[in-house]
């Protein structure tokens, strides 16, 4: 029987036994003798001068081991490094971003001083006993005010504008001049917090004898972290080991290099003891990156038949007070995807990146693309509403047709493959769209407000060609066939819930013909794994999996040579078939990978010139991004008395190319939908005008509970890609990108009888209730 049963199968995840029994090791579970604990003093002000830091109360505290301020690091210890930002922008303003604030604090939660003590409890006590004096400065929170002039977040820059990024394609002027209708709308994509359930966690240790630094961190990018720590700390990179053990969710927020990570390493070197820091949830809300936060001013030109002919965009993008690793890059992705899955040819856009006295924004699940999909999908619905057309028909009219792939967009991307109308039709049929519209009309007559929202998205992922990335875009895999036949895979990606220990083993099991329990997938340790870029941008399988496939091919080619020599045959006459080496056309003779591996280990029966051993390291440089797509349909009912939204149905038809393990794919989509839904309905990070964070705990900031989300109905289509040898497209962000506009469109559709054109997220009951105080028009507006 053939070894072709693993890929495509819904097998249980191999990482789960340790997770369900409480035997997994997250960073806080790492135990090292002699560990001491850090606690931070953080700014309670949005903007202030530091006029004094008094830690004298700690002088005789026997629990306290060390206290450092920004001044100490900068002057006494010469640690003047700024934290890294990866970008390729010529005119980007990059103000210094020190590990601890020097002279001035610029957002609530900015670290000012660190204290190290003998327990987490005594460390917290000590931090409470450090007295900091501040001279509060005017803060700037509003992006437009910030862009217009003082006060400045960084006085030395003389501006709050970090960069501008203009873009133009086609003839926008002509499109607007010849339009039948034009629509102007401001769409705010609010600031949200990623909230992985495991907050930022790190423990560093320094072996002074070996001059070896080891950091365990809850990170998505152990190798990039190591590289950046080498730069920030001025250490040889080969003297740093970064380990991402079990990581409790990332969503982009752990795709970063944080001040705390650098400082914990430095402290471990100073003190020659393991130093641990586990942030609290309150600190996490203050000082872990936030996502989104754009004001998108949109102008749309359209013809009476619903064809959209032109798009003008002005994007104000909030950087926060400093750049984190990818802060300025994220909004540029919004422009790249400003045409969604439509053939918009005339686009004019400008991004204005603005500093404010808030925590930095950066990559959050979707990272720049959800913002684009949101305004594009809202635009389609607004055009439909204005022209009294069905929003589904407007989509149909503007889709890039299935025969047009590969398709080069106005923004210069080449969409690999797609079939947008097919996923939409499948979704509409499954949910009985026509029936829903009838039901909606009936209910409106009864004063009940059902809304139907459709979103047809395409996303750019599988990040990405190195030329188009702020840093390397490739990834790596090593396969080692061990002498006794088990197979070790070292992958450069660093999963934290995505299940690659299972899916990668499925691929290897099929292709190299070994039982899956003989395959072990190793990741997240720079001393074990060759350099890899990490897990983000829906790239784990599309790039890391592709590298694995290349490594399999190298192993197979060598194994074939070994078998050919053994059989005195021509390698060209042999092939891998069902996971084994056979003679073409003669399946009676075969050799397993394990057998070839053993011969390679023994070394004495190898063809001349062939090195012993059966292992391979390969890197995959993606020639292009991949572009998964799909249609999400959401049905909501809005309570006319309260404005509360009930999601009645949620259906998604996604196309992420080939599915390696449908169970894992569905899980990614479920979680993505919930996160996108949460942005649409619940979540918003709110600062007041002085920069106080008003949503600083899980008592104020609403991430959804089980009863606040619906059950999801999923289906898929399969349109493979030729960008990578697996034909996969990535699915980590799809749910988040597709769902937010589907829900917003549904809610706004429900409120159409009240003349509502747009309401900004989150679609809190109060906003909807206020909109529903208008007198409704009876029946459908269509």
């Amino acid at each position: 029987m053939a070894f072709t049963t693993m890929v495509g199968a819904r097998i249980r995840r191999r990482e789960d036994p340790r997770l369900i029994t409480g035997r997994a090791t997250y960073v806080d579970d790492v135990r090292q003798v002699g560990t001491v604990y850090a606690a931070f003093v953080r700014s309670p002000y949005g903007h202030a001068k530091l006029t004094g830091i008094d830690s004298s109360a700690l002088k005789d505290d026997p629990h306290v081991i060390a206290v450092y301020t920004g001044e100490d690091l900068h002057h006494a210890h010469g640690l003047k490094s700024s934290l890294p930002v990866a970008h390729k922008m010529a005119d980007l303003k990059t103000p210094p971003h020190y590990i601890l604030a020097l002279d001035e604090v610029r957002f609530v939660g900015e670290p000012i001083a660190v204290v190290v003590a003998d327990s987490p409890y005594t460390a917290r006590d000590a931090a409470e006993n450090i007295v900091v004096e501040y001279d509060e400065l005017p803060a700037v929170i509003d992006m437009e005010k910030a862009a217009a002039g003082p006060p400045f977040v960084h006085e030395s820059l003389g501006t709050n504008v970090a960069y501008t990024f203009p873009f133009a394609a086609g003839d926008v002027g002509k499109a607007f001049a010849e339009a039948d209708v034009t629509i102007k709308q401001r769409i705010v994509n609010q600031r949200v917090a990623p909230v992985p359930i495991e907050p930022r966690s790190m423990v560093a240790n320094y072996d002074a004898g070996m001059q070896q630094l080891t950091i365990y961190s809850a990170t998505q990018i152990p190798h990039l972290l190591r590289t950046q720590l080498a730069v920030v700390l001025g250490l040889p990179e080969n003297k740093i080991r970064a380990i991402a053990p079990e990581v409790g969710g990332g969503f982009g927020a752990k795709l970063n290099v944080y001040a705390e990570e650098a400082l914990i390493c430095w402290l471990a070197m100073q003190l020659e003891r393991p130093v641990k820091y586990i942030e609290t949830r309150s600190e996490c809300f203050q000082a872990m990156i936030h996502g989104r936060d754009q004001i998108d001013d949109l102008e749309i030109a359209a013809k009476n038949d619903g064809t959209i002919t032109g798009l003008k965009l002005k994007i104000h993008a909030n950087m926060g007070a400093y750049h984190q690793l990818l802060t300025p890059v994220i909004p540029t992705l919004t422009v790249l995807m400003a045409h969604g899955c439509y053939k918009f040819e005339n686009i004019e856009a400008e991004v204005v990146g603005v500093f404010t006295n808030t925590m930095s924004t950066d990559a959050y699940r979707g990272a720049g693309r959800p913002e684009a999909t949101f305004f594009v999908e809202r635009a389609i619905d607004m055009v439909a509403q204005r022209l009294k057309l069905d929003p589904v028909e407007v989509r149909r009219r503007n889709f890039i047709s299935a025969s047009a792939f590969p398709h080069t967009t106005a923004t210069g991307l080449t969409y690999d493959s797609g079939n947008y109308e097919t996923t939409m039709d499948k979704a509409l049929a499954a949910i009985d769209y026509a029936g829903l519209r009838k039901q909606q009309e009936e209910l409106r007559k009864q004063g009940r407000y059902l809304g139907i929202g459709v979103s047809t998205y395409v996303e750019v992922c599988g990040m990405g060609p190195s030329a188009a990335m702020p840093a390397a875009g490739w990834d790596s895999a090593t396969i080692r066939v061990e002498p006794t036949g088990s197979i070790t895979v070292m992958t450069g990606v660093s999963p934290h819930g995505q299940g690659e220990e299972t899916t990668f083993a499925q691929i290897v099991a099929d292709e190299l013909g070994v039982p899956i329990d003989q395959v072990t997938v190793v990741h997240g340790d720079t001393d074990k794994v060759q350099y890899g870029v990490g897990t983000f941008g829906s790239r784990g399988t599309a790039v890391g999996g592709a590298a694995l496939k290349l490594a399999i091919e190298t192993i197979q080619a060598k194994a074939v040579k070994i078998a050919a020599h053994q059989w005195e045959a021509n390698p060209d006459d042999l092939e891998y078939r069902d996971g084994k080496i056979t003679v073409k056309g003669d399946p009676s003779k075969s050799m397993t990978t394990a057998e070839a591996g053993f011969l390679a280990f023994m070394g004495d029966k190898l063809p001349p010139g062939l090195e012993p051993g059966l292992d391979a390291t390969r890197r995959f440089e993606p020639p292009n991004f991949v572009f998964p797509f799909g249609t999400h349909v959401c049905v909501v009912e809005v309570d006319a008395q309260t404005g509360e939204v009930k999601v009645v149905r949620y259906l998604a038809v996604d196309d992420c190319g080939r599915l390696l393990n449908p169970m894992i794919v569905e899980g990614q989509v479920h979680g993505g939908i919930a996160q996108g839904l949460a942005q649409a309905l619940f979540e918003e990070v709110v600062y007041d005008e002085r920069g106080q964070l008003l949503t600083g705990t899980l008592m104020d900031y609403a991430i959804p509970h089980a009863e606040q989300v619906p059950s999801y109905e999923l289906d898929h289509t399969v349109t493979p890609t030729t960008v990578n040898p697996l034909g996969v497209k990535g699915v980590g962000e799809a749910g988040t990108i597709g769902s937010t506009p589907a829900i917003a469109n549904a809610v706004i559709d429900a409120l159409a009888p009240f003349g509502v054109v747009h309401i900004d997220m989150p679609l809190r009951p109060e906003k909807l209730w206020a909109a529903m105080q208008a007198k409704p028009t009876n029946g459908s507006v269509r």
Partner: protein
Amino acid sequence: MQIDLTVNGKRTSLDVEPRLLLAHALRDYLNLTGTHIGCDTSSCGACTVLLDGVSVKSCTVFAVQASGHEVTTIEGIGNADSLHPMQEAFWSAHGLQCGYCTTGMIVSAVDLLRRNPDPSDDEIRAGLEGNLCRCTGYENIVKAVRAAGKAMRDGEPRHSVADLMPIHPPVEEPPPSGEAIIPEQLQEAKA
């Protein structure tokens, strides 16, 4: 001060500060690190354990309060040799991704079935109101609790991890054993 706890059936005596949270006592004194901490406002439920058989958030109980009482953590709910049906169901239904909330979620779900052995999906969702998950969108968690409820009502036996490991594709001959340095069939291949 001295406290006496029975944790996962084993009596233990600890000398603790009164302010020590039960979650930290379990993690840092008893090395039961399956109990996770995800917030500071008693919101997320990652730290859920059973105290005298009912679910509590161990970050909102001082260890001294638990003195004289029985605590069951995820480690006591089941292990690789004998999975609790709830653990098995979370595995089979893909009710977890990053795993961080999972242990608390499983403990809460065990308590939910104690109160209501045959809950509807809505009752499951309401019963897990005290636990936050950011990965799964809850769909497969609900599925898992439903399946575990059925298994428990049907009196299904407990399984080990080994019983449930991913099913191998059928093979014509046994795979090379990992035990021998030079397995027999490889010797033959070499010959």
